[in-house]
């Protein structure tokens, strides 16, 4: 029904593979047979009008749908060839390796340090305090926040500005050194300047991680992503290199959407 190319960036290894993924909430189908292959060390953007299923699909990738009563996921989803919906895969382990950043910055009501140290602590990744200090510093540096907060690590995370909070949350996610980072409209609650910083950050992180970002803004998708997938009414309509999608969409719905006829 749709014409998707399985691997738009052949030079990069494939990280995530979805085959006929369906999701239904209490019997209502929200996602229809999505198949996609997402390469490592690049940014893949999911775009589409609200309610199109892009966030739902994102939440499949770290099994966050498990936390919703009545959610059912079907089909096959693999990361590095390993089926993540398999019974033998523990969601705790999966989520440790798949970080997630949410729409609204959600730092815990703890200090900046404790926010970043949260993951390493619960997973027991650091045995000594210096080790933990190092992890925290690295994560904050990678998130580009170290210079701004190094002198007030004991301040509550909620005392930071919105953009800083979002970078703190990213630092929190990368502190456990995940393989995939999911971002669910990470800039929708931020002003343009903070958005620019985050986009810069995403671009830097691309070196080391497989990043999947859901966004409302087509400009943002065009700016940060290498691949773009367009979702509509629970279907994956079109998927390909970002350039192709924006300059030469094959599906009329994609065309209508990016030209602003609906959305």
């Amino acid at each position, binding site marked *: 029904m749709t014409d998707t190319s399985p691997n738009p960036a052949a030079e990069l290894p494939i990280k995530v593979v979805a085959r006929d993924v369906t999701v239904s909430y209490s019997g209502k189908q929200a996602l229809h047979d999505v198949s996609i292959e997402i390469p490592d060390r690049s940014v893949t953007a999911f775009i589409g009008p609200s309610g199109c299923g892009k966030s739902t699909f994102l939440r499949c990738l*770290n099994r*966050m749908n498990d*936390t919703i*009563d009545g959610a059912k996921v079907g089909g096959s989803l693999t990361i590095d060839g390993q089926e993540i919906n398999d019974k033998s895969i523990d*969601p*705790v*382990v*999966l*989520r*440790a*390796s798949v*970080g*997630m950043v*949410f729409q*609204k910055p*959600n*730092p*815990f*009501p*703890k200090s900046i340090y404790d926010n970043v140290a*949260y*993951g390493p*602590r*619960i*997973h027991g990744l650091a045995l000594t305090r210096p080790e933990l200090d190092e992890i925290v510093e690295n994560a904050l540096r990678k998130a580009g926040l170290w210079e701004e907060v190094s002198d007030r690590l004991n301040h509550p995370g909620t005392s930071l500005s919105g953009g800083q909070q979002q970078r703190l*949350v990213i630092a*929190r*996610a990368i502190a*456990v050194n995940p393989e995939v980072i999911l971002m669910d409209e990470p800039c929708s609650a931020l002003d343009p300047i903070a958005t620019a910083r985050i986009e810069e950050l995403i671009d830097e992180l691309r070196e080391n991680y497989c990043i999947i970002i859901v966004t409302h803004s087509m400009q943002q998708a065009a700016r940060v992503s290498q691949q773009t997938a367009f979702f509509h009414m629970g279907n994956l309509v079109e998927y390909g290199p970002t350039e192709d999608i924006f300059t030469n969409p094959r599906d009329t719905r994609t065309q209508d959407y990016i030209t602003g006829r609906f959305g």
Partner: protein
Amino acid sequence: MSIIAIVALAIIVMLAGGFYVGRSRAISAVSGATARLHSLPNFHGYYVAIWTGLPAFILLAAYGMFGSGLVDRLTAMELRRDAAALTASFETALEADTETLALAETLAVLRDRADGVAEAMADLRSASGSDRDPARLEALQSEQTDLVNQLATAEDARLGRRAELRDGVSDEAAEAGASVRALAGFELAHAPRERRQLFLSDARRIATDGLASRASPELDAAAAVMRRHADQIRNLVAGIAIAIAFGGLIRTRGQVAAAFRARNHVESLVTAMLFLSSVIAIMTTIGIVFSLLFESLRFFSTVPLTEFLFGLQWSPQIALRADQVGQSGAFGAVPLFAGTAMITVIAMIVAVPIGLLSAIYLSEYAGPRFRLTAKPVLEILAGVPTVVYGFFALLTVGPAIRGFFAMIGIDDVVTQSALSAGLVMGVMIIPFISSLSDDVINSVPQSLRDGSYAMGATKSETIGRVIIPAALPGIVGAILLAVSRAVGETMIVVMAAGQGANLTANPLESVTTITVQIVMLLTGDQEFDSPKTLSAFALGLVLFVITLVMNVIALRVVQRYREKYD
């Protein structure tokens, strides 16, 4: 009563009539074209009806509340006038009586000494460094207790002598053939409060043809006076009520016209009524504060505040007879505070973990069906009257604790212990804590949970490291509210904690609390003016202040917390 009932009925009829008159006049004023009226015809009706009925009914209600009190007062006044001669001779007898004079002098001396001791104690307490002298303070304390006893004895003696003289005067007058009205008036003027009240209530029963507990010519005379006053006041009230109802009807009927803003008038009356209702809440608080303060101040004029707040001995029995000096009155409330604190702590040890953990389990783990059954069960615990908990503590928990300790070889455990009261109070508090914490936990935003789960945290890690810290202020507020409830709880402790004012840290002994003592002091026969009774109000004031402070803090904490996440 029947006349008043007829009047009430008449006013209701006038009120209904007023509504009809107002309505029909409004319609006829515009000859049926009601659209030309400023207000709907009904509003004109309401307006007339309200001014017809409301003032008259307020008068009747006031009569119902205060009528009998007024009659009593008038009766007493009239009879007392008749007894003027007797009162005069009683007063001369009092003045001439050497014993009374001697006692008054003793009292004055004792009061001086008590003041001196209190002052010296205050000085010592505020002293610092080398001037501190605990031994002397203790000596002064015992001297003070002694003085309080002596004061009470002397006061009793004075009152006893007074009663003797009074009875003498009244017996003499009766023999000399004084009028029964004078004797009744004398009784009403100088007998102790309880006797006066009994006299009046008996007279009232006779006056209303009920059965009195006794009969005497004095009572009959008083009843006759009372009946006359009651009839007068009743007729007066009935007449005025009819008159103002009628006046209101006539006046407001004249106001009805096409342009008359009846609706605005009615609505501002409604608003005023609603406003007055909301003022009652304030009046209640003012009433509480003033009644507690007023009586407490009277108490603190006999027992110093420092003695009350820091004294270690509580035995409020003021010597009843002269030879009972050993049975002293000591008003050191520390044992009560300690007992209250101990029982509250035990209750919290039970209630906080169980209440908090069940709230967490129900809101984070339990499936919807389990939640739907378990929550109402917890609410039932909250609905059980406290007297039932008291009975449970007395009948089941107390003996069970005793049995348990007897089993492990501790035999001298009493059934009424701090432990049993505390445990049962804890059970009572569980639903309180769990429902408040449930609210608090549910108001932690879902995004924080998601954030934690997305990091790979398990449920218990999310709860322990994110939800609880986030909800902590709210939980602290809930616990504070629960503590304040435990401190003010009465029936469980009255029934289960015993009455001994022990200053002990052993939860297996019986202790007493502020609330228990208030109940003990104010139930049974009492003289309203004795320090014993007044001390209950002082304790009530302490209780009120403690709970108020905790509530204010708790409400503020919870409110801040809510604002943070809303």
